């Protein structure tokens, strides 16, 4: 359907208006709708954060400083610019300078003041992680009717429990 106002672009908004007790249905494109004060879901550029970061880095970080890779996942700032996503938690430390500035600009504040968190002691989650993994293997072994493996896995789970 073509926009009732400009007769050029595709209409994506149905606007119902009442003027002098007359109801009018208008089919408008995004631009003409915006001119009438109706905002539609904003079409965002593909990875706006990446572009944002680029601008931040040009101003604050010498090009050489954070050119490297994240020591944990190998993500680079180029990856971030392309995807708008970080690769892992360690990325925030690997690219700390840029991230601090980016977060300050995105959120208007640089520091977390919400709920604080302390991770559980290592042995608690190591055991939980190992148990979870073993149970998953057990499930698959049973599915594939590998009963010897399954029995072995069951014993290992019992020991851990």
């Amino acid at each position: 359907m073509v926009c009732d106002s400009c007769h050029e672009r595709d209409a994506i908004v149905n606007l119902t208006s009442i003027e002098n007790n007359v109801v009018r249905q208008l089919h408008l494109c995004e631009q003409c709708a915006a001119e009438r004060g109706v905002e539609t879901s904003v079409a965002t550029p593909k990875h706006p954060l990446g572009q944002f970061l680029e601008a931040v880095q040009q101003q604050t970080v010498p090009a050489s400083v954070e050119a490297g890779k994240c020591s944990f996942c190998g993500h680079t700032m180029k990856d971030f610019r392309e995807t708008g996503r970080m690769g892992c938690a360690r990325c925030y430390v690997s690219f700390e300078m840029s991230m601090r500035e980016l977060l300050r600009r995105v959120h208007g504040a640089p520091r977390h003041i919400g709920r604080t968190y302390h991770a559980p002691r290592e042995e608690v989650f190591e055991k939980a992680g190992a148990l979870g993994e073993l149970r998953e293997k057990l499930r698959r072994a049973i599915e594939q009717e590998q009963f010897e493996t399954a029995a072995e896995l069951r014993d290992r789970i019992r020991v851990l429990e």
Partner: protein
Amino acid sequence: MTLDLSLLPDGGVRWLDASGQHSDVVLSTRVRLARNVDGYAFAGRARDGERLRVLAQVREALQRMPAMPESFMVRVDELPAAERAMLFERHLVSRELAGLEAQHPLRSGAAVYLSDGLSVMINEEDHLRMQSLQSGFELRAAYAALDRVDRELGARVPFSYHSEFGFLTACPTNVGTGMRASVLIHLPGLVLTKEIGRVLAGLQQMGLTYRGLYGEGSEVVGNFFQLSNQTTLGRSEEDLLDTLIRVVGHVIDREEEARRVLLRDAGYIIEDKLWRAYGTLRYARSLTFDEAMNYLSGVRLAVGLKLIRGLSVYTLNKLLIFSQAAHLSAAEGRTLTESETNLARARYVRKALEEEAGAVG
């Protein structure tokens, strides 16, 4: 693996039962927390094996959690596309987790834990997306239920956390609290009186944002808006909730005022228009999704204004979910073409309204 949503009360759509506060205007409240399991790359970057290990670890922790009683897991990565689409249409998983987006193909290890009103998506953009869905305007209750899940799970699984930046997430826009609190609100009065532009602009000044029915990137249809906090860092969860509660309260007042103005200044026109919407839904033989949403919006408004009586808001809310393409295909037991879907939608809506038609007046 097959999907059995009958394990959930009302098939997982109880958040639409119109039992909460202001449910004639606010359909539902949703709060979500984004968390990542420490020691793995984020889900988008991780290898298949890493995601499966995350799943195993979280699964182990969730199996014995009092905060999520009677929950069950659905391996989204093992479901056919039609069932993944149904989960998405019920708002139980995101489009990304369901693997319905071309740029985000289905990930191995994608799963969701479901219980009444609470869910945990695993291997979405973040390892964990926990959410609480409640009927009506119930932000505090929704957050309180979710906070329990967060604390119990965080005591069993180590989350990625940075003393300065807070909870770390794949997208920097979620860093800090990782919290997005939103209400799904129906604002036909503000749209009809053309006040909506100003109201939405005002929201942005308060640090809030709006989206369509399906969250990020979705279009506004049927005058349904999702209002939520824009930022997640530098403010506490309570502060973010307080702002949202205050602003949404104000938006509800403005909507109610707009409805009063409409009735006062254009009473018979509105009444005629809304009954015509009802008439179309009752008798149309083919309805597109957008048409159905727009007419349902009109009928919802008529029920709110008491111009139409005897029709339950829950029935109307359920139509929003069950008249979607994947649900209609499932009900017919085969994949429908677009025109068949429109016929099936009209048939479904007619039947649902017919059941209550005796009381309508």
